């Protein structure tokens, strides 16, 4: 089920009503769990079995990992969990990709091998709930937190519908304690949640789907060599689309959870106002970046074993982070490019560390210089989106050639209206991110007078109704 659908509106109203019934907390949790399974099954019912399998294995393995004292048995249990979770992910998400690459290598060696193409359907949200359950068992192995006492709470932690399909990726200590005592949204939480839900839907439906997706699709699906203007506008359109689509989903998820009285972690913090790439990754898909940092970068050595090891850990983390997004080498290249940016940034920062003082840093973060750096970061991030959005390296290369302006006689593809839409929306996003970079949308909403907020909110709702975009899926569902 997707948030931008009539089905979800009806579903959510029913859930809110059930959540406010005078019944015990345990029954309310059972309601939420059943609702979460319905939410997932409404997409593709058979895949609910995978979700159950993952939940049951990790609940019992997690508990055994926490209590087991024999280090060999403990490692064995961890391996079971890793094989269970990552094996499932590998089969469904990377099965075809691995087979294709194997066939390519075998054919390169001169052996004729042409197996039938497997028809594997990717279960929605598998990358997200695999990471959710994986961090639980790893935490249990390291005894970082207490095991979840009840199967009901653990199932709800894994399956809670607002975060299930596309995050935010939650850690057990962030959500499990919230299931231990009864939670009903306060009046403030309810209206804050509804505002976030409206805003998230506006970002997704009006801006991402209504204004930008057609332009991005036209440019990236074109087989012609395009003019520089069309290529750049297409990349800007995708840059806006991917942010508005994914941040829109996260905003909806946080808003929906808040309406039920639960707090989910922030997932985006105005990433297009980031100054540099480490700042970008502190602001973009925050829960994935922190997951990769804690469960991949640090175990790989982090910054504790010298500069060379740090660079190695950084690059490997970004490459695997890229691969997490999709079974295609273009995603690996996307991650690799971000890794390269982070390398360069780290090198420059290490060199400047001794000469930079605090006052310089403040000027750089707030003034025109900071804005210039943010703009530079944004432009370089756009280069990475070319690899993220292109299906093949040849398409990505073709786009980069067009963007470089060296190609003469490129085809003019986009209408003036499409260009105007992008040229209004993208600068608006950048300016909004810059002025909001150190604050939160709910803080700003509460600072506004009630009637100004009412007018702004109604504008959002009217545009949402007027856009009449049908419920298209969120981009991150495919990851």
């Amino acid at each position, binding site marked *: 089920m997707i948030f931008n*659908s009539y*089905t979800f509106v009806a579903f959510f109203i029913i859930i809110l009503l059930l959540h406010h019934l005078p019944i015990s907390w345990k029954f309310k949790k059972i309601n939420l769990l059943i609702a979460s399974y319905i939410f997932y099954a409404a997409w*593709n019912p058979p895949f609910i079995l995978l979700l159950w399998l993952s939940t049951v294995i990790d609940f019992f393995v997690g508990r055994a990992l926490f209590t087991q004292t024999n280090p060999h048995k403990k490692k064995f249990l961890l391996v079971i969990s890793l094989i269970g979770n990552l094996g499932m992910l590998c089969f469904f998400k990377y099965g075809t990709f691995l087979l294709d690459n194997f066939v390519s290598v075998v054919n390169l060696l001169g052996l004729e091998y042409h197996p039938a193409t497997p028809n594997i359907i990717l279960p929605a949200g598998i990358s997200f709930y695999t990471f959710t359950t994986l961090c639980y068992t790893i935490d249990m192995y390291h005894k970082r937190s207490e095991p979840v006492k009840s199967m009901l709470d653990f199932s709800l932690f894994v399956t809670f519908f607002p975060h299930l399909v596309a995050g935010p990726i939650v850690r057990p200590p962030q959500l499990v304690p919230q299931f231990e005592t009864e939670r009903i949204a306060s009046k*403030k939480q309810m209206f804050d949640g509804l505002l976030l839900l409206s805003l998230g839907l506006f970002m997704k439906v009006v801006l991402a789907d209504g204004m930008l997706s057609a332009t991005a699709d036209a440019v990236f699906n074109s087989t012609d060599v395009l003019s520089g203007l069309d290529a750049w506008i297409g990349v800007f359109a995708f840059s806006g689309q991917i942010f508005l689509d994914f941040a829109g989903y996260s905003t909806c998820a946080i808003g929906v959870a808040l309406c039920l009285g639960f707090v989910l972690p922030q997932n985006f913090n105005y990433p297009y106002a980031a100054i540099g790439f480490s700042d970008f990754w502190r602001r973009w898909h925050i829960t994935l970046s922190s997951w990769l940092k804690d469960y991949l970068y640090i175990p790989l050595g982090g910054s504790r074993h010298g500069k060379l090891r740090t660079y190695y850990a950084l690059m490997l983390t970004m490459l695997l982070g890229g691969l997490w997004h999709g079974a295609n080498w273009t995603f690996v290249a996307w991650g690799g490019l971000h890794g390269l940016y982070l390398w360069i940034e780290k090198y420059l920062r290490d060199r400047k560390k001794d000469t930079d003082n605090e006052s310089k840093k403040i000027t750089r973060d707030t003034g025109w210089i900071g804005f210039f750096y943010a703009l530079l970061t944004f432009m370089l991030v756009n280069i990475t989106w070319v690899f993220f959005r292109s299906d093949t390296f040849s398409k990505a290369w073709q786009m980069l050639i067009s963007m470089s302006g060296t190609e003469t006689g490129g085809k003019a593809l986009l*209408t003036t209206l499409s260009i105007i839409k992008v040229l209004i929306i993208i600068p608006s996003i950048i300016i909004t991110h810059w002025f909001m970079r150190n604050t939160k949308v709910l803080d700003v909403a*509460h600072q506004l007078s*009630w009637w100004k907020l*009412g007018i702004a909110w*109604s504008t959002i709702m009217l545009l949402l*109704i007027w856009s009449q975009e049908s419920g298209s899926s969120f981009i991150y569902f495919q990851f």
Partner: protein
Amino acid sequence: MENKSLLKSAVLMGVITIFIVLCWEIYLRNLGVKNSYDDGPPLWSYTREKVYQSPNSTVVFIGSSRNKFDLDITTWKNETGFDAVQLAIEGSCPRPILKDLADDPNFKGKLIIDITEGLFFSIAPPNNEKPIENIKYYHDRTPAQKASFFLNKPLESFFVFLDKDNFSLNAKLDEMEIPSRSGVFMMPIFPWKFNRNAFDRQSAMTKDFVNDPKLCNQVKGVWHFFSEMNKHAPPMSEKGLDAIFSSVKVAVDKIKSRGGEVLFVRTPSSGPYYDGENMAFPREKYWNKLLQITNCPGIHFKDYPAIANFNCPEFSHLGPEDAKIFTQHFIEILKNEKGWEFSLSKSSN
């Protein structure tokens, strides 16, 4: 401020939103706008489900927009007692739908294929996009999408402003027709009065459209735009045409082998548009050869005096009143000349 709720703002938002939406709705109704259902993949898929009904109570129609305008479904039902499952899609080539039905072992029914030569024999990928999108949506539909479709129906039945093609934000922006750079394709705009979609996927021109020469000329201009565009397309090779004929024959044979029936129909067009079609797609080379290769019966409107001389308001589709007359004669031809039998008892749908 910490504990202040946004209740007052939410109430104001609700009041403003409801007020403006109602004003917009009343304004459109005063313009004479009637409901029109979004003819996207969900409605097409809902209709596609019905192809499995008994062939003794149902006929499936595929083709392009002419089929949707020219077949009056109410007349069809009243005269035959059969359901008309309308799967034609405007501006598109029906061959992908023919293939989808042929490859579906559960489809064993009666099929009428409308031939608009410029689209049926087209190899331009854009003409296949909509059918392919609809077929994919039908096969991949989730339970949530099915539920959303049924929740959407009462809203579309009530609010006339829910018409994405004509009254959505993007439709209104497109209407500004901001000039683009030379060589950029800009989709021409159809007036909203040209086409209203019923829930059974029947398309109909409004009376205002039929009686307004200015609006008719606007749509004639659209056809002129497309015909000029097609002049620059590379000509179809003999090999390419043969490949189309043979793919259609394969599909038709599959349906027939399961006990199904297939009939082709060439629905009316008129004026210079018809002349242009005749020049570009000579009857002997296309229509006659199609019937000969597939060994299927066909009804060409020019062969029957009762339906040979309609005046299409914009050269390409029948107005609502003519569609009723055409449908009545079409049924008569099916019964008297093609041996189709209909029972007047309503199907149990």
